[in-house]
Each structure stands twice: as C-alpha cells, then as structure tokens.
C-alpha cells in the first residue's frame, strides 16, 4: 500500500477484534431471524439482496447472450420476454429500491444520528420478512412459468392479453412495496425523533439527508403503486372495469398511477446512492462537503419535484399536448438539483488532500456515469427529442447509466466504505481496485453502445433485431461479460475477507461520522452512552483534535 493511504490499521501483531460486538452477542439462526438489531437486519438484507442481484444479473446475462445474434436463437421470444420482465422486476423492486437504504442505511443511519436503534425495530424486521415474502412470490412466478408483462405491467396487456403469472408477480411487488414503506417510515421517524442531543438537522451527515428524502418518496409514492396493482389484479382476476378500454376504462390512467410511483421510485433508488457519494468524497479528500446546505436541500428538492414529473414517461402515449408541456418543463427543473450535487462534489475535491481508496474509485465512477445518465435524461425530458428516443435502446442505456452506473457504483462504493465497520475487517485493497476498474470499463462497454444503437432506432424489448445493429450489440454483450466479472470479484474477496481480512480497527478511513467513533464491528447497543454532538458533520479539525487528545491521554 502506498504512503498515500489514510488507512490506519492497528498494528497487526496486537490487532484483534473487539470481544463483544453485535455479531457475537448472540448465536444461532434464531437470534438472527428474530433480531431487532438494525445492524443484524441490515446484514440479513444484504444477504438477500445479493441473492436477488445475482438472479437478476443472471437474467441480464441471458438477455445479452440472446442479443449476441440478430435472430432469437438462444431462446424463444416468449422466453426472452419472461427473462427481461424478471430482470426488470427483480432488479427494480428487489434490488435497487432496497439496496442502499435497507442495507447500508439500516446499518449506519441509527449510528450516524447517535441512536441505539431505529425507532421501530420490530417494524424493521417485519419489513425484511415482507421483502422475503415478496421475493418468494416473485421467484414462484418465475418457477411456475414466468411472467411476461415487462416490469411496467402495462394494461390492457397485463390484464387481458396474457396467460402468465401476472397476479403472483403483482402480489410480490405489492408486498415488496410495503416492505419499502416500512423502511422509509422507520428512517423518517428515526431521523426526526431519535437524534442524539446536539445532533441538529444541519449537523446530520448528508447520507441521512438523502435517505430522508428517499424515505419521503417511499412513504408517499409506494401506496399509489400498491392500489394500482390491486386494481390490475382485480381486473385480471374477476374482470372489474377500471382500466379496460372495452368497458369504458382508460388504459392511460394506469400509466398515470403507475408512473406516479415509478418515477419517484427512480429517485428512491438514486438518492441514497448520492448520500453514499457525499460521505465517500468528503472522507477521502479530508474536506467537508462543499456547500453542505445546497447538497442537503437539493436532495429534498429532488424528492419534492420528483412528484411532479411522472408524465414524461408518457409523452408519446396520448397524454394531452398541453399536459406534456407542463411535465416537460418540470422535468427540466428536476434536473437542476442533480447538477448542483455533481458540481458540489467536484468542488469538494478542491484543496482537499485526496487519496484513492476503493470507495473513492467507485465514487469517481459514479460521478462520471451519473453525469452521462443525468444529461441523457435531459434528452428524454425534452419533448421533441423524446419522440425519437423513447422506447428504444437509448432509454435502456439512459436508465442503466443512472441505475447501474450511478446507483450500483454508489452501492459498491458504500459497501466497501462501510465494510470495515460492518465486519471489523479490511478487504484486499489491490483486488478491490481492480474490481472497481473492471466494473467501470465493463459498464461503459456494455451500455455506451446502446446509446448509439438507440439513436439508430433499435426498439427495446426485442428478442430479434435487424442485422445492422449487431456490431453494437456484440460490443454490448462483450462488455456485459467484463461487467459480470467486475461484480463477481467483490462477492468473492468480500466473503474471503470475513475470515482472512486484516483487522480494521474502529476508524480505518479517519472519517468523521459518529459511526467511525465506535468500535468495529459495533456493539449491539451502538453507544454505551448516548453521545453528545458538538461539531458539524465532516469536521476534520474536530477529528484531528480528537485523535491528538487520545494520544495525549494514552501516552
């Protein structure tokens, strides 16, 4: 490791994990499955979302393999349809939505605000069980023969024209929705009511702010999806007429209600990731985040504006042109807070003292890819441009840049950043840097060609395509292979590090958050005594003073 590193591992001869921690406070499966401890629930979530991520990832692999050739030769078209539907459902509802909040957020938010647990530990556990039930429903829809509506469940296709397991999958998503509502509810109450003395709103780490904003969206948006799915299920099962054009219903109403949730859902997915980036950039440039208030409020602004833009998914679908105008204008406005964030992160680096640990590499990856993802979002928000681009691979590339390039990078960044805190051990640094690099290269190779093939007009969700698009699709598939390796690597070395990793000590990154001031892995009760907070977030001078003080008293 270079001298530039700020990792201060305890001397290896004497290093040992703390005798008591949340990991060894109790033993046995039961102590995990009935736990109220937010940290253990976070671990449960981490294991389960990783499981679903790899199922969803396998689906993605199949999709890319099928698209290697123009014909639908690997699988029949209906199999392909089922595969991309499952990929979408699993990745959106079972991976992206709970990824950062339910794992990292669950683990660190209570500690960040100085609380012993989330406000409602039992609700937190219930949320995980709901997630598992949702997962079982989704998997059974898959095992029973699949579902091929696309993750958007468009009526009347989903209600009257398919013979697949729409109801099972719909119920799965309905339940997953409640799981995410409970997580969001818990976060909001915890951040409002459980902050330690002295932890004012503007001393909160930005990770809390962005998760708070995402939680608002979860609590207010998800129920609309729930009722919409209930109506779809009722319409499919017993034939009530709410969306059915044959009975006088408006299929576009479904789109309105669906996107009222599903557009804010995009922010549910990305906002917590942005929070991770704020923490990581600040820590590894040893500087407070440039314009803390602007970054904090931009999260809230994204959450609020997020509710006003949903019909930009429907510009060509027959919404009134006047309405399209309004929604396009508001879409332009919601792009601004994201731009503010990007520039503020870049400015945070200015006059910092930057080191390039793995989380930071992932964060740089995020900044680049999210910028592209965000800017191409402006393409799609622009009315005239949207006509040509929507429903093509351009939009596929756009949201994969935001969701995979942005969110997944942020998730990996966060996992690497807090891994020492979660497990008390370090991962192999060289290997993890290699993984970050592989992911970045693989990602660009996979999704950048899709912008071009999208502008050329290749429609999404096609099992077979005209042969002139093949070159770009081959590039994309090649990239996906690299990307797959990039995702498998962390899986392997992180598991390895559980047993063989070096002991991390309480604050390997010399970070300022409250979570770094306690032992790693933390005690079940987090803090022996409720902390009194008397400094701002990202106050590195306070931290320096703190360490100095310790040295003096110890020495």
């Amino acid at each position, binding site marked *: 490791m270079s001298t530039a590193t700020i990792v201060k591992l305890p001397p290896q001869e004497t290093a040992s994990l703390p005798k008591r921690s949340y990991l060894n406070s109790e033993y046995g499966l039961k102590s995990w499955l009935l736990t109220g401890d937010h940290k253990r629930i976070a671990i449960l979530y981490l294991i389960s979302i990783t499981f679903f991520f790899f199922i969803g990832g396998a689906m993605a692999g199949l999709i890319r393999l099928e698209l290697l050739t123009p014909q639908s030769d690997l699988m029949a078209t209906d199999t392909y349809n089922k595969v991309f539907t499952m990929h979408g459902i699993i990745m959106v509802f079972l991976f992206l939505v709970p990824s950062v909040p339910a794992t990292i957020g669950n683990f660190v938010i209570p500690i960040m605000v100085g609380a012993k647990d989330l406000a409602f530990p039992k609700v937190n556990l219930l949320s995980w069980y709901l997630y598992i039930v949702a997962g079982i429903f989704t998997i059974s829809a898959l095992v029973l023969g699949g579902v091929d509506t696309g993750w958007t469940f468009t009526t009347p296709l989903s209600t009257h024209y398919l013979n697949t397991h729409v109801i099972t999958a719909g119920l799965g998503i309905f339940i997953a929705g409640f799981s995410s509502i409970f997580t969001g509810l818990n976060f909001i109450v915890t951040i409002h009511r459980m902050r330690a003395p002295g932890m004012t709103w503007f001393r909160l780490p930005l990770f809390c702010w962005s998760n708070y904003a995402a939680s608002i969206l979860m609590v207010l948006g998800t129920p609309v999806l729930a009722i919409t799915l209930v109506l779809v299920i009722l319409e499919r099962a017993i034939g009530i007429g709410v969306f059915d054009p044959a009975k006088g219903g408006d299929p576009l109403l479904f789109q309105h209600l669906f996107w009222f949730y599903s557009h804010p859902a995009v922010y549910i997915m990305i906002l917590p990731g942005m929070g991770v980036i704020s923490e990581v950039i600040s820590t590894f*440039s040893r500087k407070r985040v440039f314009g803390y208030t602007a970054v904090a409020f931009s999260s809230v602004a994204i959450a609020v504006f997020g509710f006003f833009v949903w019909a930009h998914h429907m510009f060509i679908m027959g919404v009134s042109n006047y309405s399209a105008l309004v929604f396009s204008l508001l879409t332009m406005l919601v792009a601004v807070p994201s731009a503010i964030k990007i520039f503020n992160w870049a400015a945070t680096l200015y006059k910092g003292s930057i080191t390039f640990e793995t989380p930071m590499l992932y964060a740089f990856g995020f900044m680049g890819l999210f910028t592209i993802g965000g800017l191409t979002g402006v393409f799609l928000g622009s009315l*005239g441009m949207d*006509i040509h681009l929507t*429903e093509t691979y351009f939009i596929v590339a756009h949201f994969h840049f935001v969701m995979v390039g942005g969110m997944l990078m942020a998730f990996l960044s966060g996992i690497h950043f807090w891994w020492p805190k979660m497990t008390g051990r370090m991962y192999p640094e060289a290997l993890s840097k290699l993984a970050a690099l592989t992911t970045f290269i693989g990602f660009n190779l996979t999704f950048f060609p899709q912008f071009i093939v999208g*502008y050329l007009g290749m429609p999404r969700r096609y099992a077979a395509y005209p042969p002139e698009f093949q070159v770009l699709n081959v590039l994309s598939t090649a990239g996906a292979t690299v990307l797959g390796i990039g995702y498998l690597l962390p899986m392997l070395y992180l598991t390895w590090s559980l047993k063989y990793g070096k002991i991390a000590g309480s604050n390997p990154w010399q970070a300022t958050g409250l979570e770094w001031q306690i032992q790693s892995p933390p005690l079940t009760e987090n803090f022996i005594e409720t902390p009194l907070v008397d400094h701002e977030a990202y106050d590195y001078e306070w931290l320096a003073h703190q360490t100095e003080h310790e040295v003096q008293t110890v020495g």
Partner: protein
Amino acid sequence: MHFISPVLWQFLVNWLTHFALFPPEASEIAPYTDSLYFFLVLISLVGMTVVVLLVVLFSVMYRKERNPEPTQIEGSTLLEATWTIIPLALFMVTFVWGALLYFRIYNPPTNAMNIYIVGKQWMWKAEHPGGQHEINALHIPVNRAVQLTMISQDVFHSFSIPAFRVKREVIPGRYSTVWFKATQIGTYHLFCTQYCGTLHSQMIGQIVVMTPDDYEKWTNGSTSGASLAQNGERLFASLGCSSCHSGNADSHGPSLAQAYGGKVQLANGSFATVDDAFLRDSILNPTMHQIAGYSPIMPTYQGQVSEEGLIDLVEYIKNLNSNYRVQQTLTTSTVQSTTPAAPAAGQGMVKQ
C-alpha cells in the same frame, strides 16, 4: 491477416462497412430532430468535460502527496448560484427547443393525405383511402405530407419509423395521429416499440418511399376494387344509419353532409370539433357525444363494427359533401361500384 479467424474478420469488415451513428435522415423532420440532438450532445460533452476535468485536475493537484493538509472551505453561494443558473438556462433552452420540435412533429399540415393504421397483436394493417390494404408495410409517395390515423385493436402498440424520427403510441379505443413528409426514396424500418406481448419483436415492417409515379402505379396495381369510402357506404346502409342520418330536416339524427371538420354544440353545452376521433366515438358511445337538439336515441354500435369497419364509416362520412349520397344509399340498398363515393382517388385523399 490470416491469423484472424474468418468469422472475426467478417465481423470486422461488417463493422467497418455498416457502422453508423445516425439513421438515415429520410423525412422533413429528421434534420430538425438531429440538430436538437447535436445541441444536446454538445451540451453533454461540455458538461462531461467540465466535470471530468475538474475531477482529474483536483485529483492530481490535491492528492495527498502534493497537498497533505486540506483547506476547509464552507462553500460559495456565488459558485453554487453559477452552477445552478447555467444548467437551468441550458435546460430551459432545451425545453423550448424540444417543445417547438414536438409541435412540429405532432401537428399535421392541413393538406396531408390520410392513411389509416390498425395495430393488432402482432401486425400492422395499413388502409389507404383508395381501398388498398397492406400488412406490415406502408407505401407512400415522396415529398408529400402523410398523416396516419392509428388505432389498436387490442393492446398498446407504438408506430415508429426511426429514419423519419417519428413515433406515436397506438392506443386501444382511441385514434392517435402522426405525420411525416418523406424526403428520400428508399425502404425504411417500421418498428413496434411498445412492448405488446410474445411476438413484439416481429411486429415490424417496411416503409417504402416511392416517387409519385411509382406510387401511382402501386396504388393502381394493388387496389381491391372498392375505396374505403365505398366500403363505408355499404356499411352505412347495412347498419341502417341512413334511416336517421338522411339529411332531411325531419330526420332523427343530424345531417352528416359536410359535418366533418366543423364544430358542433353538444347537449351538455360544450363544443366539439368533428374529427375522426369524434366520429368514431359517436358511433360507439353516442350518448357521450349527444348533439344539442337531438334526442338520445342512437344505439351504440360497440361490438358490431370492427375497427376497420369504423374506419370505413369515418372515411365515408368524411367525404360526404352533400346529402345526395345518403339519400341514394337510402333508396338503393345495393351499392353500384361504378359510382365512386369519393371523388377522384387523388382528390379524395386530400383533406379539405
């Protein structure tokens, strides 16, 4: 180069010869869309460069080896305002530009010739006013504005011609329209871009742009005998529409002659423009389009007329210039194919 496997070699050749960044610009709209696209790509490149440059520059200048002690900075309202306002301004320009383009793409000129499209799982049916039917293909003349009136028989489809940069959702139960003016002769892709079930990826077709002469030949060669309006006339008679819509002063229904394109007052006091959608809806949901001064006695024809039949009826009513045709339909239940309902084919396709 013998060590490169033939497959790979072929692939590379293929790549070099077929590599394209843009689809052909084959319609009047395409250059406009592309210029907005270039503008947006430019903005993105500049934005990207600024971000990457800042990140790289700072990473080099302020890496720990060079700058071991960070300088804490609170923030800067001026800077933050700058990078709020500049993107906002650019996004506003994009919005206005995009909106203008949207008007242009979705606002057909009044002299556009009309072709009907019916989408169903999983094929496109095109119906020309002269009675030519096509499946998964559309023949159009070059340099002539063409408006498509589209409807789906089952689920959402989407009619997309990348070379023309136009796309519009085809909705069950509702007409949607799109128009374009092809500028280059050739054959282009037609895609269904809205996921519509198992064979979604096979719901594709060809747009054939022809010279006016070739088009003329094609229309003459593929006519099925009766124009849409003639089919409509037959249907009009067999459904008994003429008994009420006879155009006489004492008839139960409003006169349909020259009704198309005008405004009518509805029973609830509001005004509606009589367009294709209005005519179709009036046949299926007469109560909701009750014209003021008439009693709601018209039965619904829901389930009795197919989408194609509705198109025939709409086309017939559209071309009714006088009540004479209706009365003739009233008296002669069989239609003489010798009297074309629409005037000359060419004229009849021109709106107004």
